[in-house]
Structure formats: structure tokens, C-alpha cells
């Protein structure tokens, strides 16, 4: 456990001005964060739509809205809610309210990577939710060559009231990649890709491995559009896989 926390401390999550296509945030559109917070005094709204497909049941739809505020240099807080609709069950769920805190510890200096961490708390406001969902994420961002960057996120997830047959703790990792598209003639879009491994919540199930590819594009000085697709490549011990996930988002800062 101690090792996990040290790992989390080394690699937690993300960014610079939220509405900057260079600043990568989890969910917009893939799963990783870069090691930079939004700017001090910046406020940002992020909106996202997701479509998830499954092998054994019908698709579900999500609609996430998040507000962020850079309350201090290199630190921001966020509040998010993601109502979902499950087609097999034909009903919606308000979802948990998530409160997040991000701390950018250092920028990349020479070859030493940028480091940050984030803590997210999910309040049990969703249907049948119990206890708190906690996530500790450690983030490192490092340049690879001149313009390419890699981002390592290590997650420790915890639920204070796990359901029957569920783990109290799970771990995960995401290796992200970002590169500007169009340099040196255009400066408004970033290609992102990731590879993630996540431990299933259910006891007896193993890990799910997935890949994602996406694009973030600046559409105005204050706004970024993003789109990404993710696919679960493998799973161990019967863990459920999502063959296809589509995420589309729009972020605006003010």
C-alpha cells in the first residue's frame, strides 16, 4: 500500500489553461491528464458527451459537465456531474457529484519531468450509490524529443462502502502521448493517444487494457473542441470490456 501511495504521488494528473488545446485533461477526450493545472484565476466549463458500447448489453450515454477554478498558482479545484442513460435499463442516473483538487508540483526543467497529483472525491448522489469514491492520481509529463510528450498517470481508487463482491481498492495506470499537429504552419490542434490498464472493481475479475486516440482543437481563443475514441483491447478473468467509446467535448475558459 505504501508503494501505491508513493506511486500515486509521483504521477498524479494535469494541465495549463483548461481551454488550451495543448493542455490535456482526463476525459477530454481520453483518460489521462498532463501535469499542469489551469491558470491562476482561470475559470472553465467543460462539457462532454460519451457513448459507451458493451459486448453483453446495450449502449449507455453520458453527459458530463465540469467547472474548474484556478484558485492559486498551480492549483485548481473542480466540481463535476455526469448524468448517464443506460439503454438496456431504459433509465437515467444523475450520477455522483465529483469534487477534485489538482496540484501542479513542478514544471519540466531540463530532463526532469513535470509532476503533479490530483485527488477526486465522488459523493454518493447517484442511484444506489454508497460511500465515497476516492481517487488519488499521480501524474508525470515529460518531453519525448522536441514536440512529443508522454504522460504517465498512476491511479489508486478507493470506495469507502464497497458493494458485495467489490474491491475496496483498485489500481490503474495510463500512459498518454500528445503531439501538436500541423507545426510549424498551424498551431491549433493536438493529437492525443493513450494506453490504459485498469483493475476491475469486481472481485475475481482481472484487468482491462485499452487504447484511445483523439484530437483537441482550438476553436476560439477561449474554447477547445475535442473528440476521441477508446477501445478495450483485452480483459482478464472475465472483466467486462467496452469495444467502443466515443467522447466529444467542448471546453471554454473565462
Amino acid at each position, binding site marked *: 500500500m505504501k508503494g501505491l501511495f508513493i506511486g500515486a504521488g509521483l504521477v498524479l494528473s494535469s494541465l*495549463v489553461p483548461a481551454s488550451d488545446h495543448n493542455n490535456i485533461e482526463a476525459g477530454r477526450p481520453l483518460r489521462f491528464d498532463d501535469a499542469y*493545472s489551469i*491558470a491562476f484565476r482561470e475559470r472553465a466549463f467543460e462539457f462532454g458527451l460519451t457513448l459507451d458500447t458493451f459486448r453483453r448489453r446495450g449502449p449507455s450515454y453520458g453527459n458530463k459537465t465540469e467547472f474548474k477554478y484556478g484558485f492559486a498558482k*498551480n492549483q485548481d479545484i473542480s466540481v463535476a456531474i455526469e448524468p448517464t442513460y443506460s439503454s438496456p435499463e431504459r433509465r437515467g442516473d444523475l450520477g455522483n457529484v465529483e469534487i477534485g483538487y489538482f496540484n501542479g508540483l513542478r*514544471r519540466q*526543467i*531540463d530532463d526532469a519531468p513535470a509532476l503533479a497529483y490530483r485527488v477526486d472525491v465522488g459523493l454518493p448522489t447517484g442511484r444506489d450509490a454508497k460511500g465515497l469514491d476516492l481517487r488519488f492520481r499521480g501524474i508525470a509529463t515529460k518531453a519525448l524529443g*522536441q514536440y512529443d510528450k508522454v504522460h504517465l498517470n498512476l491511479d489508486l481508487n478507493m470506495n469507502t462502502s464497497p458493494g458485495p463482491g467489490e474491491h475496496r481498492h483498485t489500481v490503474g495506470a495510463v500512459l498518454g502521448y500528445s503531439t501538436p499537429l500541423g507545426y510549424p504552419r498551424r498551431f*491549433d490542434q493536438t493529437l492525443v493517444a493513450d494506453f490504459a490498464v485498469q483493475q476491475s472493481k469486481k472481485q475475481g475479475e482481472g484487468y482491462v487494457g485499452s487504447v484511445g486516440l483523439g484530437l483537441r482543437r482550438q476553436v476560439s481563443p477561449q474554447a477547445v473542441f475535442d473528440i476521441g475514441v477508446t477501445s478495450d483491447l483485452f480483459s482478464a478473468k472475465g472483466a467486462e470490456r467496452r469495444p467502443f467509446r466515443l467522447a466529444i467535448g467542448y471546453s471554454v475558459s473565462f
Partner: protein
Amino acid sequence: MKAIIFFGLTAMTAIGLAQDHSGHQMAGMKKQTELPAMPTDIPGWLNAPGADHLFYKAARYNWAINRIPKFAKDMYATGVGHAMAYEALVRGEASTLETKTFDKINWVLKHPPAMPVDEGAISPTFLRKYGYLEKVFDWAHTLHFQTIDVFAHPGWTDEQKEKEIERLWEFYEAQPYAITGLPMNMDYLDSFPYSMKFRTDYPKVNGLFWGYHWLQTVNYDMLYRVPVKDQASQYEVLGARYHETELYKTDRDFMPMMAEMSPRFAKRFPQIANAFDNLHMLHDNVNDILAQPQLTEAQKQEQVKIAIYRVLATTHKGETPGDSEGKENTLHDHRHPPSMPGMGWMKGSEDDIMWMSGMGWMDMSACSHCSIPMPEGNPWGATVSAEGWTMMVRCLMCARDMAGETPGRAIIRAATNDPNRLLVLISDEEGNWTSNIEGIVFLEKFGEHPECSGWSRAFTTLAALEKYVADNPEYKDTKPLTLAEWAALNHATPDTYRKIDKPNPYKPGPPPSNGGGR
């Protein structure tokens, strides 16, 4: 022994650098022979690891610059040049600066982006090494853009805008990365062993840099107290000049200064004008340091930090503009031309007389056309922008005749009877003028130049002119002039004009054949 060898090497490097450009020593300060030493009170944030990104002041005017699309795009493109050049320098690609890198920058300047660019993303290697410098640049560039946004915002009066500009300055100054608004001795800031290296070795790229410093400085008088609807039309003239000429000039004596390019703004907001000049000087210092192959990586890092320290507001806390007692030609020399508080001390300056690149020696307290001292208070007269320069003149006649002596298009910005209505006149290549005020009428009763600001004026209405004539019966027989009638007049160079004959302080050799004047 190790220390002695290190000292010896450092001293030899410094002397070598100092001799590098000895041919440039003219009037003013001599180039220093020793590299500046690290001050003991260097601010802690320079060594702090945080990214420390700052957001601009939240306001409804943000991004109003986009109301002038061509100008906005050209301004956005300026973020690319230094970033690409710095990236090339820190990656050991200096040999490409005048060729491949120049072409890359020039392409972007010719095809400017529709949105602002993240300079740090264009120069990631530079950012990893000099992230502390980026904090200073970013914060000053934010002030640049927000002040422009305020002026381009259509919803406020001039008074509201001026108050907001003052609040923006306070907002800017509150951060430790703020550059001082005090006038600095530019000759001193350009006197280090590495100084002038970049402009000497890379004149084409330096030309681009100083070209867009021209754009960043010339725009303020285009916007200041000018109705929003009349701003874009001026940029048709200035933008063409920028792309056709200013970007590619390699014969400037010195970087464009705020008070040279936007004298009305510099007079009204001297702190901001000085901060931008100091920012641009910091850019030049950094260019020179990075371009100096004799400096080690560690020396470059140290010299960049020292260069930042020199211009920070915290370094000059408690000091006042104009103060130089016993500190002439030092870091704490805050002299300025008496009539222009928004201008630092330049090479060879004497009181209000300074060398302006492209114009020669000019007296900033006097009309550029008739050499008679500018009137105190309102009306403030006019400015003329032509051939890349902007000059203050006493009256509309001086403005028209000065523009008439100059080839190419010109812009006149002039006071009218209404302090809230600025007259903007724009000429075509043939000297045909258009006005932003329909029905503008002129009074011109040619007489003695010392009184020209009384007998050469513009009025927004005929009634306003008649009221002025009623209050000043000496003009009762003077016929009101339409724009066409007024534009057809020309009284040539007045006999009061006095050319200042002195050599160019930046270049060796005898004075130019025109005596150094215009």
C-alpha cells in the same frame, strides 16, 4: 587553482565578447568588458519549480481585438517569431536562423493564425531551460493584449477605457513577474559584453523581431481615444506598411520605442509604455545572450536571470521616474525626456532631443514640422503617421503639410472642438484624404507659426466653428473649409523648422547628407 582558472576564463570570455562589436562604440556609453555578476537579492521565484500560469483579468472586453481581424491575426503571429528563434538557438541550430528559421517565421507572418498561439508549445526545449523567463514574457504579453482589448471594446467611453487601463496596470504590477514601468537607460541596457550580437549576426531575423515590435508599439495610437469604428481603417494603412516594409528592415539603428510609435499613448500611460520598451529590451538582451557562442550554458542561464532582474519592478521598488542623481548611466538611471515620461534615456540624448531611427535628431518637446514648442494642455494638436513613423505636431496645417512631404499613405489623428471626437484622416497614395467625421470643417488662416494651434483647427460641425469664430473675432473673415478645400492647401516646410545637425550616435562615420534630420 580551479577558482583562478575559472575566473581567468570568465574574464577572457568577457573581454572577448566586449571586443566583438567594438566598431559600434559611438556617442553614449562604452560597452562593458565584464559580464554582469549575479545580484545578491535575486527574487526567489526565478528558481522556483512551479509553472505558475496566470490568467488574464476577467472582463467583457477580452478578445475585442478580434473586431479588427487583420490586426488581431498579425498580433497573434508575433508570438511565433521569438519562440521559433529561441528554440533554434537552444537546440544548437543557430546556423539556420537566417535561412530555414527565417523562412518558417516569415511563412507564419505572411499566413497569420486566426487565434493566439501558445509560445511555450512552439519552443518546448527553450521552455524547459528558461521557464522562468517565459513567466515574464507571458505576463507582459497579457498586458499587451488586454490593453489593446480595452481600446477595441465598443461598449465604453474613452474615460471608462482609460480608467480600466490604469486598473490593468495595477493588476499587472501586482505579480512578481511584472516589468518596471520606470523609464530605463536603454544605452546602459544595451552595453553588456554580449550586447548587439544578435542583430549583428542575424540581421534578417532581428529585422522581423523589430518589425513586429514596430507593430506592437504603433498600434496604441491607432486605438487610443479613436472610435472603435475608425480603428480598422487605419490598420489597412499600417498593416500594409508592416507586411511590405517594416518586417524586412535591417537598417534600424535601435528597436522601435513606444513613444516614437505611439506618442499620445506613451504620454498618457508612461508606465505601460516604459514597461513595453523594457520588455522589448529584455527580448534583445536574451537574443544576444543566447546567440553568444562564447558563453557556456551555465553562463547563459545566469545572464538571462540577471537580465530579467534588471527590468523587474521589484528591482526598482521605491524609485521614481526622472530620478538619476548620481546614478547616470547605471541600472537605476530613470531619466526621461522632460516632455515624454514614457520614454527611457537613449544613446546620445540631451533633454528632449533624441535620435529617432529613420527621422534623425528630433526634439520631443517641439512640433516635428515647425519646430515650435508643443502647446500645453488641450487641444493637443495632431499626430502624423507615415513611412513607419508617428510624429506629434502643433496643428492640422503642420500635420497636412508634413504628410504631404512624405511619399505613400498617411494617417492624421487630430483634436477637434469636441474632446470626445478624435478626427482621423487617411490619405491614399495620391494624397486624397478621407475623414471619419462627416461634415468636418476646418479653420485655417495662415499666419505666424507660433500661433498655428489657434488658427489651424478642425470642427465637427459648422456651428462649432462659428462659435469659435465668435469667441475669436480675429477669424471673422476666414472662410470655413471643407475637407477637399483644406486638403488642397499646402504651405510647405515652414521657415521656423530647425534641423538638428549631429551625427547618428549608432553609426560610425560623418553625419548623413541631410544632416541627420528628416
